[in-house]
């Protein structure tokens, strides 16, 4: 028997606190550690957080409504702007949902290309995360620059492939927009071979660092039952030891052909959340190696796909991918017309914020910044 989740605000003020003495702080929206325009209304008893209410919507442009007013393909470039750190995962999730809605087959080569790009995106995201979280801890500058140096190498590959460093707009229904350019595979292999050096360097830099340990150990951990109940997905959930990765739990694309492991944490504190991402990057490199070796020839897009006057049959579909931040899903309803009748994004960043207050209660204000950093949000996706 599972018990109901605790109703929040059950103890808005810690025992023995005079409510008049509370200090109310508005953290953000313009604050370097909020990863965008994000605000938290925090109530403090001394340094201790007794209440925290996130406020967002500063970047809201009603992405879902706009997608309902344009054709299916017209939303593809717009999905890049959801989680702008990892646009190719967003592309894939959306393409997957439309392919499910219309029953489109994807050729072998395109499937391999998609896996390669999605795993490179995971590397980009987790690498950037390392820089951001260290900057949140006060290691301002150097750590971020080390991380961005490596991230830029992958973005160079993306630029050669898609024409843009970040706004890729690369996936199409039934495949990808274009093939790998000449010499791209060789550069990819060089990158895969060199990336572990960076990971070793970064891990050495971090693992025994006293400041990192002091700031992250036993900070922000919650029992795994609460995390599952709160809808937390992705590295956040796996850091607490829950074996739930959609690449294994609900395999999409061709992930069932590759051998890789799902790294799991134990405690689920911020330290585990950082380390889990290191391990995931190493597994991603393994998948990349296998996918690059198995890359077949053939079409990069299904040649039978209809580009003009594309109208999926009446119905609905929900498809999801294991994005770098968690379960990224697209729910589409078609009424048989050229535009989606309903287009819904399941944003992992947004839903992972549900338990932010629970993680922060009773901790110091300085820990809030680390916890928020460890959730790894992107406001383009939270606010949509």
């Amino acid at each position, binding site marked *: 028997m599972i018990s109901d*989740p605790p109703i929040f605000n059950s103890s808005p003020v810690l025992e023995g606190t005079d409510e008049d003495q509370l200090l109310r702080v508005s953290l953000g929206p313009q604050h370097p550690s909020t990863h965008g325009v994000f605000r938290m209304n925090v109530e403090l008893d001394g340094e201790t957080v007794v209440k925290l209410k996130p406020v967002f919507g500063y970047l809201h442009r009603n992405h879902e*409504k706009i997608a309902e007013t344009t054709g299916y393909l017209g939303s593809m470039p717009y999905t890049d702007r959801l989680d702008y750190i990892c646009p190719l995962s967003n592309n894939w999730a959306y393409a997957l949902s439309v392919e499910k809605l219309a029953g489109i087959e994807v050729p072998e080569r395109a499937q391999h290309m998609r896996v390669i790009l999605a795993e490179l995106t995971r590397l980009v995201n987790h690498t950037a995360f390392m820089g951001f979280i260290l900057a949140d801890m006060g290691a301002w500058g150097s750590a971020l620059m080390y991380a961005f140096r490596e991230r830029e190498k992958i973005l160079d590959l993306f630029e050669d492939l898609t024409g843009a460093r970040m706004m890729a707009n690369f996936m199409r229904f039934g495949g990808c927009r274009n093939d790998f350019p000449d010499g791209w595979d060789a550069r990819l292999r060089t990158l895969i071979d060199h990336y572990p050096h960076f990971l070793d360097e970064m891990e050495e830099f971090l693992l025994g660092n006293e400041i990192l340990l002091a700031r992250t150990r036993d900070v922000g951990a919650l029992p795994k039952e609460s995390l*599952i109940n709160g809808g937390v*997905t992705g590295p956040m959930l796996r850091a607490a030891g829950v074996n739930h990765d959609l690449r294994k739990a609900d395999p999409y694309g061709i992930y069932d052909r590759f051998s890789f492991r799902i790294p799991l944490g134990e405690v689920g504190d911020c330290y585990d959340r950082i380390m889990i991402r290191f391990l995931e990057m190493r597994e991603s490199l393994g998948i990349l190696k296998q996918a690059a070796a198995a890359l077949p020839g053939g079409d990069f897009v299904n040649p039978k796909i209809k580009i003009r006057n594309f109208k999926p049959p009446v119905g609905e579909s929900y498809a999801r991918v294991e994005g770098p931040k968690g379960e990224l899903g697209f729910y589409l309803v078609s009424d048989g017309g050229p535009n989606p*009748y309903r287009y819904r994004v399941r944003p992992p960043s947004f839903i992972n914020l549900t338990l932010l207050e629970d993680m922060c209660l009773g901790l110091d204000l300085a820990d809030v910044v680390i916890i928020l950093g460890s959730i790894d949000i992107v406001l383009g996706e939270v606010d949509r």
Partner: protein
Amino acid sequence: MSADPAVVLESLRAAIVGLRADLRRNPGPAAQHSILVDPDHLLPVMRHLRDHCGFDLLTNLAGIDWPDPKLADAVAVPDDAGDAAVRAAGGFLEVVYHLDSTKTRGAPLVLRARTADRSDQVSIPSVVGVFRSAEFQERELFDLFGIHFTGHPDLRRILMWDAFEDHPMRKDYVAPDDYEYEPTPHGDVLEKARKHDPPKP
């Protein structure tokens, strides 16, 4: 338990006396069928799924505005067509729930619940007491669709600002002519604004 809605519905019928729920067929190639649950039974259904069927993760809530109930039945096809005529002609709002399990593999289970109409009877019981993950998502549906979740502990707008009055995801929502309306508009903007929004007495 597998996410096959027919099997799940059997289990629900056995557990909840007098359950009003039926299977809805998805006519598209995705073939993800769903279960339409009467809002009165939504909470017992969610509890049963969580405690006895292993669906411990409510991943996604999606709202849909159906001004035309016939279209809703075309997307989620009922077994007997007679049911459609019972629906109010004015349409309704719908919430689609995707339930997942961290213990078993496979696609999520799809549940749906519908309000009585689109104007004043727009309430659905909140499932926050069963799944915390619904907290922000129900606020979002309240904000953008105007679905009232009874029993939600903190039902406020979440993406639009608090003073905003309409529900932008409704199909009949009309976007304002000028998003950056200032007290001193001029030229075309003033003309358009006057035409659409006559000055209040």
